[in-house]
């Protein structure tokens, strides 16, 4: 299944990545090469197989619902590119 340039642009939007026109062309070619290889999976008849999403059988990993200290706001903001009055500041959401 080959993907078209338009689809590659759409995927870039979904991934919040921007590329130059040249990069899109190269990327499109590389992705298609990988997808051809990945297409090998279509050889398998796996309609009746259950999917595995986990590395192990650990499930229902609950803990006691106890309140313990979490990191203070000052720590949480320590790596913020910009912050003010205990909040992360970002450019406006709507243009």
């Amino acid at each position, binding site marked *: 299944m080959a993907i078209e340039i338009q689809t590659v642009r759409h995927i870039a939007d979904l991934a919040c990545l921007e*590329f130059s026109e040249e990069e899109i062309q190269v990327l499109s070619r590389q992705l298609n090469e990988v997808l051809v290889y990945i297409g090998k*999976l279509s050889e398998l008849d796996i309609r009746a197989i*259950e999917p595995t*999403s986990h590395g192990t059988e*650990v499930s229902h990993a609950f803990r006691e619902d106890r309140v313990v200290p979490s990191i203070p706001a000052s720590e949480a903001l*320590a790596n913020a590119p910009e912050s003010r009055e205990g909040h992360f500041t970002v*450019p406006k*959401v709507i243009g």
Partner: protein
Amino acid sequence: MEDLHCLTGTEILSRIRSRQISATEATRSCLDRIDSVDPRLQAFRAVLREEAVARAEAVDQTLSRGADPGPLAGLPLAVKDVICLAGHPTTCGSRILRDFVPRFDATVIDRLRGAGAVFVGKTNMDEFAMGSSTENSGYERTRNPWDLERVPGGSSGGSAAAVAADLVPVSLGSDTGGSIRQPAAFCGLPGLKTTYGRVSRFGLVAFASSLDQIGPIGKCVEDLARLLAVIAGQDPRDSTSSPAPVPDYVGMLDRGIAGLRIGVPKEYFPTGLDAEIGTAVRRSLDRMTGLGASVEEISLPHTGYTIPTYYILATAEASSNLARYDGARYGRRDPGARELGEMYRRSRSGGFGAEVKRRIMLGTFVLSSGYYDAYYLKAQKARTLLKQDFDRAFREVDLIVTPTTPTAAFRFGEKTDDPLEMYLSDIFTATMNLAGVPALSLPCGVTRQGLPIGLQIVGPPFGEADVLRAGAALESDLGFRSLHRPRALER
């Protein structure tokens, strides 16, 4: 005074405990060697000089009082820069996290510190653990101590190179598709990927959450067992960590392999397999027979679907895990953005390298509407089949042995033009991540060009004790360390 830097982790621990050397001497020996050698090797992203010396001195003070600093007292250790060490940058080999300083330690760091270990530095890696050569680092180019024009492997290339060049006796890496085992193989060292859930991932920056595991690289199998004894075990802060009990890995090491049944999967010895690698692995299997194990051919029939399955699932998980790098709360923020969407796009695009972007794109695609069933869901089902191959095999055999890599260390730039070719380096290692089973790479020989060859020992889930004892028995028999040393840095 013998060259401290040539000792194994186990030997250093023993000499510190018997007060033949001090922890401070051991750490200073590493720091001196890093100063003289690392400029050419570039294994380290950061060296934690003051902190390491202070820790070592504290260990010495504890020992002088007659108290016990812990089972790893004074052991100098390097940590792959994907694992959080509070107060020091954790870059994950990426420009997007150049100034990111974690506010807490990873669980493995807590445990190692509690055991008396000394953190000497953070090591270089492929960006966000994506790569098989460390060429994808946004920073240094780490070289292979066996041949400086060749890659150390990846993504834990810095961790492997640092140990191989005797800068530290042991290091921590992480393994998602082979990222501990392949660099260990390329650098002539033992390296272990544990059962999924054996070691806590809390504080490990996530690449693929259902595949990632932290593990040790050392100079001998006993080094790995000693580290594993400290870092293994359930962690309430990692809900994917297992409550399975932690056996006495060190105590069980010298039980030998007599009576163990070893399976050799025919799919891992394809017609095109490099002849030197095939020969070295088969010769080692003969040695194992000589030590009392029985060897039989088995089949892992779905092996051919490993790479497609891995590159769908790992990239899908990565695209989700790397969505957090948006410039909002930490990491690089593009200074010019005037609205939020632009901030996300520019911060990410200007901060990630090409391979990371490529994998995010692939992962986003396979999860997207219209393609999810054909790719992602199908890959999850293929994963079930790969896991069942191992379940079935381990009903007949105790361990499985394969080559670790299809080639020895390749030259810089040799595989960077073709992403798919680089992905195929994972062909013998990625299945074990998909199946969640433990696997050790052990050096078993060298090529005609003097490059190390790795052999992989795979066990059933939580079978690390058997994997390690088989590794120890073979290691002792082969005597690799006494026969072969990397010499490239001595020139």
